[in-house]
């Protein structure tokens, strides 16, 4: 069988997310519940979750979640990691044997700190060093794949239906202030563990429902900056674009949203506010290669918050609801009601309108 990244089959999906603005920690059970009523949106070829605030005891260390094809690959990769990082802890990610999830790779996590000498030698900051290491492993080390690399957060993904994937990874045993989830219906690639969502780089994670038509234009542009798209899936490129715009270019979340889901020129021209008009024009002009066209609804997870965004034509559905300090996002209202039956202020953001929710400073 051709692996993910070696074949493209010309997606429907389900996404959901929850965040506590108060920084209150929740187990992964509710987010699993959210995926149940949306089962028809996936086909069992991929499910995944990202939890934020789940590793408070290691919050200053990068948590690398990895798939390996065999023990030798793991040993070789560990030797490589030790040349670059202080490995504070390395362990199997605990899983539950269930009949719905089979053929799992070897799944480990490492809590690591980049070696100072390596950073100084390469004149890189910590984050860039981690990104380059992840790219190096994912493109150069056959059989090893880093699928999560942020601090105090982690991604858990597999081939299967999301509710089964959540049980498999024992998400009931983790507590986070925010969670995102994805059920996959792959239409471009055969469905491999690494190709399930969320896609992650550092603390940025993306879950995506859609099928972007600008994939190759975006890929060519982003690969100029050292990102390597290895899996031919559109979500991977969205993740790298957001890392590039937010971390490297220092754009705000709203600005990044205005780049990737830029309004039409006619809509910009009709905006009555000259400051906004100029800003939108500027962003479209400077980053034309990062405009994402075609249908998408995404939830971006990051340290301390979430951002939900639809493509500018709103070719995919997404609703937002609230209850108390918690905010819920999902492809369908039913998923929100599954998490919180009494959710209030259910509304659907417009195409290209970012919804940013941040945890109160200092509360996690």
């Amino acid at each position: 069988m051709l692996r993910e990244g070696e074949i493209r089959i010309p997606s429907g999906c389900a996404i959901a997310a929850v965040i506590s603005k108060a920084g209150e920690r929740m187990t992964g059970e509710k987010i699993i519940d959210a995926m149940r009523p949306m089962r028809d949106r996936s086909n069992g070829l991929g499910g995944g979750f990202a939890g934020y605030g789940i590793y408070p005891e290691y919050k200053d260390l990068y948590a690398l979640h990895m798939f390996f094809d065999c023990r030798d690959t793991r040993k070789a990769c560990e030797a490589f990691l030790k040349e670059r990082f202080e490995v504070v802890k390395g362990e199997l990610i605990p899983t539950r044997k269930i009949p719905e999830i089979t053929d799992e790779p070897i799944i480990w996590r490492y809590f690591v700190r980049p070696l100072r000498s390596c950073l100084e030698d390469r004149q890189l900051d910590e984050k860039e060093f981690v990104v380059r290491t992840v790219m190096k492993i994912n493109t150069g080390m056959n059989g090893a794949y880093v699928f999560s690399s942020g601090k105090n957060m982690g991604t858990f993904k597999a081939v299967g239906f999301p509710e089964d994937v959540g049980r498999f990874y024992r998400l009931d045993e983790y507590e986070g202030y925010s969670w995102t989830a994805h059920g996959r219906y792959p239409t471009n690639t055969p469905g491999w563990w690494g190709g399930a969502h969320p896609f992650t780089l550092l603390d940025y994670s993306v879950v995506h429902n859609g099928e972007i038509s600008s994939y190759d234009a975006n890929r060519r542009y982003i690969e100029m900056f050292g990102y390597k798209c290895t899996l031919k899936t559109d979500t991977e490129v969205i993740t790298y674009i957001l890392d590039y715009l937010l971390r490297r270019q220092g754009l705000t979340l709203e600005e990044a949203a205005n780049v990737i889901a830029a309004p039409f020129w006619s809509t910009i021209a009709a905006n009555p506010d000259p400051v906004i008009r100029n800003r939108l024009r500027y962003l479209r002009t400077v980053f034309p290669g990062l405009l994402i066209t075609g249908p998408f609804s995404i939830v971006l997870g990051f340290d301390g918050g979430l951002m939900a965004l639809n493509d500018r034509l709103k070719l995919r559905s997404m609703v937002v609801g609230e209850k108390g300090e918690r905010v819920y996002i999902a492809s369908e209202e039913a998923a929100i009601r599954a998490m919180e039956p009494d959710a209030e202020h259910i509304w659907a953001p417009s195409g290209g309108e970012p919804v940013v929710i941040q945890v109160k400073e200092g509360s996690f």
Partner: protein
Amino acid sequence: MIDAGGMGFCEINDAVRAAGSVAAVKNCLGQRFICAGMSGVDVTIEGVPGNALGAYLNGATVTVSGNAQDAVGDTMNDGRITVFGSIGDAAGYAMRGGSIYVRDNAGYRAGIHMKEYKDKVPVIVIGGCAGSFLGEYQAGGVIVVLGLNSDGRRIVGNFPCTGMHGGKMILRSECGDIRFPNQVTARAASSEDLAEIRKYVDEYCRLFGIDPVELMDSPFTVVTPDSANPYKQLYVAN
């Protein structure tokens, strides 16, 4: 009373068919295709029905006590869907008959590809605001948006009536802030129009318990295709 909790859509629809002329469904949570293709039954639904509620509906009456999701009344042929809340995107897609009444707002692309033939004239009435691309490629039927509780939002989003070539759209607003394509005509409602509008407003008010007199006391805009400026040479000149 059919308890939809834990049921799949086939089971729910089978139970509704078995119920006879009246059925009530509670604890709905995202099951798709409820009442698809049905006729001769009056169904009330509690909870959140899933996508494609009443798709291909063929004469049945469906009432939802809260919100409904995407693709309400997809390709419906006859009957009535009433929603005591808001609806998602693409409601009434390719609708060819019957009516949909929504108390609150509609998402994107309501009434896309609606059509009509002789006495089959579908109607969508939206009490609140509508998202972008309202009546995209509209070929027939009537879409009414009342703009209630708009909180300063425009009554309809961007690009309404794109590709419209038939039917009628009625917006309870002067529409000074709305941009229409060149191929349609937007005009203030005439007294003849108002008589027609009153029919839809009365029905909306009867369903949701609102005073029609107050509602009618407002400017209305009527949008129809401009036959003097048809779509031509959209792509290349042959």
